[in-house]
């Protein structure tokens, strides 16, 4: 079977997965309506207002949420159909709370989340791979044992707590101890007090960027540390595995020095599975980090999905859910293809 057939099969499979996710999503977010008979419209308008509305107006109101008042089985099919059409045309409905299109709300927060998750993932991956390679060269050494124990510690750490600790130390105690010399913001993504300064200044953009980076630092470190342990362990174990292969023995027998063996022969092969992992990471990147974003009150998608869930703003949760799942499926697909392209030994099948 050739590459083309493989890709076609993967595409069909991916499409089926998307359909499954779309259906799952539909039922998940209509569970309250299905089980309890509560609709979002009930949360919006009072019983009195409801009685005063004409049947037509009520139907219009329900329709805004893709719903039908007192649905029977045919209405459910109709709702499902509307939902499918909307999903595949990119119409995610409107937020119950702000009455703005959900997609706009998401786009407003997406850059923040991408910035936070992107920078922290990159930091974690680079440091993880680097230390993993350094340690794998001498497995069982004191350095190796120490690094593995550290990675296990990070694995056991509730990352949001790490965030709280960093926030407490760097944004509360250190500013007090150093008289504000070392100081990080306690909350938020950007300081709105600087608004006038930024808008009335030719270099305002730079000030705003610096301010955002200042706010970004602590959550980025938190998530970076959280991700580091996994990349490090994966890299280390892969490389140790690779170093027992025959071709490494051959390389050594050729008289290459150990560094060349490690970096040219070992690392190249050990990076292959890493590529998959990295691609998958970026698949879940818009997932955000609900807990860390909540701790730092970062204006991103992770916190938005949670806040919307709490105030029962289902269209938002449903849309974010949908986007995350589809991105993850796409990333999986790309990871599979990358793996095949990078490793000539892979036979499609």
């Amino acid at each position, binding site marked *: 079977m050739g590459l083309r057939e493989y890709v076609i099969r993967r595409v069909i499979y991916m499409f089926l*997965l998307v359909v*499954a*996710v779309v259906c*799952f999503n539909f039922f*998940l*977010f209509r*569970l*309250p309506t299905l089980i309890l008979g509560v609709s979002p419209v009930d949360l919006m308008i009072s019983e009195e207002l409801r009685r005063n509305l004409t049947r037509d107006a009520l139907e219009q109101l329900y329709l805004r949420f893709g719903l039908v008042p007192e649905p029977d089985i045919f209405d459910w099919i109709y709702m499902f159909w509307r939902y499918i059409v909307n999903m595949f045309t990119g119409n995610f409905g409107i937020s119950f709370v702000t009455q703005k299109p959900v997609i706009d709300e998401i786009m407003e927060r997406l850059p923040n989340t991408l910035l936070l998750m992107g920078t922290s993932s990159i930091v974690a991956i680079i440091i993880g791979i680097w230390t993993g390679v350094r340690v794998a060269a001498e*497995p069982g050494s004191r350095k190796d044992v120490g690094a593995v*124990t550290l990675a*296990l*510690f990070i*694995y*056991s*750490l*509730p990352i*949001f*707590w790490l965030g*709280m*600790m960093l*926030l*407490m130390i760097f944004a*509360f*105690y250190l500013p007090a101890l150093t008289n504000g010399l070392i100081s990080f913001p*306690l909350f938020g993504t950007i300081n709105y007090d600087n608004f006038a300064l930024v808008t009335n200044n030719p270099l305002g953009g730079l000030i705003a960027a610096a301010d955002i980076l200042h706010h970004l630092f602590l959550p980025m470190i938190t998530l970076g540390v959280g991700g580091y342990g996994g990349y490090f362990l994966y890299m280390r174990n892969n490389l*140790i595995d690779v170093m027992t292969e025959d071709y490494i023995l051959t390389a050594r027998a050729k008289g290459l020095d150990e560094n060349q063996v490690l970096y040219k022969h070992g690392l190249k092969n050990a990076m292959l599975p890493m590529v998959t992992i990295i691609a998958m990471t970026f698949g*879940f990147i818009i*997932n955000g980090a*609900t*807990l860390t974003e*909540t*701790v730092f009150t970062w204006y991103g998608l992770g916190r938005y*999905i*949670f806040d919307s*869930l*709490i105030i029962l703003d289902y269209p938002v*949760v449903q849309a*974010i*859910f949908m986007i*995350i*799942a589809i991105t*993850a*499926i796409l990333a*999986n697909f790309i990871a599979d293809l990358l793996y095949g392209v990078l490793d000539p030994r892979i036979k499609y099948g």
Partner: protein
Amino acid sequence: MANPEQSKSWKDSNLYIGFKDFWNEYKRHKIGILGLLILILFTGMAIAAPQLATHDPSPTNKVAPNFLAPSWMSFFDPNGVVTGEYIPDPFLVEAPSFTKVGPYADQFSATHHASEENFTQSYVNLTWNYAAGSGVSIDVDPEKQMPDSSSFIYFTQSFDWPFERIPSDVNMTLEYGVTLTGDFKTQELGGIMFRVYIWLIDSSGNWHQVYHSSSPYTPTLQDRRIDLSYFDIAAGWGGMVIGKDGTQEDPNDTLTVAVGLAPTKNFDDFLGDHPWQYYNGSVTVQVTEISLIAYGEYFGLLGTTDKGADAWSQLVYGSRVSLTIGILATLLSTIVGVVVGMAAGYFGGRIDEILMRTVDFLLVIPGLPLMMVLAAFLGPSIENIIIVISILGWTGTSRIVRSQVMAEKNKAYVESARAIGASDTYIMYRHIFPNVTPILFADITLGVVGAILSESGLAFLGLTDPSQPSWGRMLADAQGSGGFYNGAWWVVVFPGLMITILSLAFTFVGHTLDQVLNPRLRER
């Protein structure tokens, strides 16, 4: 005569030998032993939680002002007031010192009853026996601190106040009942002829009245809770604190609490009537408890939370929630994972295809958001949290089991079992399953870590039962109330530390099990 085969020592059984080999290998790993010890410690803590906790662990059970620091922090601040019970014997187990004063002191008497059995409380009786015309000594205090009569009885308890600061708040509790006889009982106004008092007496001998009783009285024991005002506290404690001029008003740092019984001026003259001339009878005050809780900057082992609840008790009970949810959720997801993995690996074909595609599907669903949504929909009970966590937890296990089963199922022993007519279920559970289990142990232990962290995350977001004390909940309260903006670092540090230590212990054990039982790693 026993069969020699059966009389073989249990030490020769395969299970024992296998376990002994395993243990010999395991104990070479230091972190594995450390993890095991921590696990035993935490399990003990969860079991002994009712004994270890000092207060009701409910997060809303207010026992003191909020954000009080742990007591041991007063080491760095010797003058800081440690919250606590300051009466040395609040339940009157030992006889207190009684004093009778005034010209008619012989009308009064006192007795102390030590508790004989567990079910009888110790108590003190103060009695005033009065025969008609025997006389009263009325001497009304213009400052209303002393009783109207100069003849009365009281008992005292003293305590030291080592701090150079007055308490922020003081609550007193007096539990007493009053038995009346004779005219005190039958006359309509009998109840206003006497009063029960509480005084604070400082070491200079100044009396400050903080409570007096009023009618009606019943023999049934009743609680009186007395919240001292700022003036009461200043009068009682002010003299023991070094003032602005650098001197201390009272000679020493001792405060005395006195509970007394005295006639009122009504007994001498009530609107022209003179009850002292014709009253016969007695008043007996039974006191079972006199307690004084002074609040300061420090409280208990770990201070108080944002709602003024005891942090230590919550921390202790939190270990129950984390261990229960961690272990049960992992158990559930392991069972599902093993069944799915075995079925997929053993039967292969279409079943394998369907099950593994389900796994693929679950892997692209975002984990925490799904847990949040389900927890919010299903409700915050412990059972639901367990289900929510295990819904996504089984996929990894099933993949491991599947690959292991696929490697095992073509081996000769399986084929021979099939040849003698063994059923599929029999082969799966008697032959294949035992060969898969060693791999599972490490997976299970590491699964517990995931479950504990998931639970704490959900609790942090407020999606678990708000009445249950849990570590994640404590962190949520600390975050929601701005714990460290108030300088209360202890509400942030300790719950997180507990989560970390417990999951670290499971990680260490899991890592060691992996090293010992995973043959691929053992060869290294």
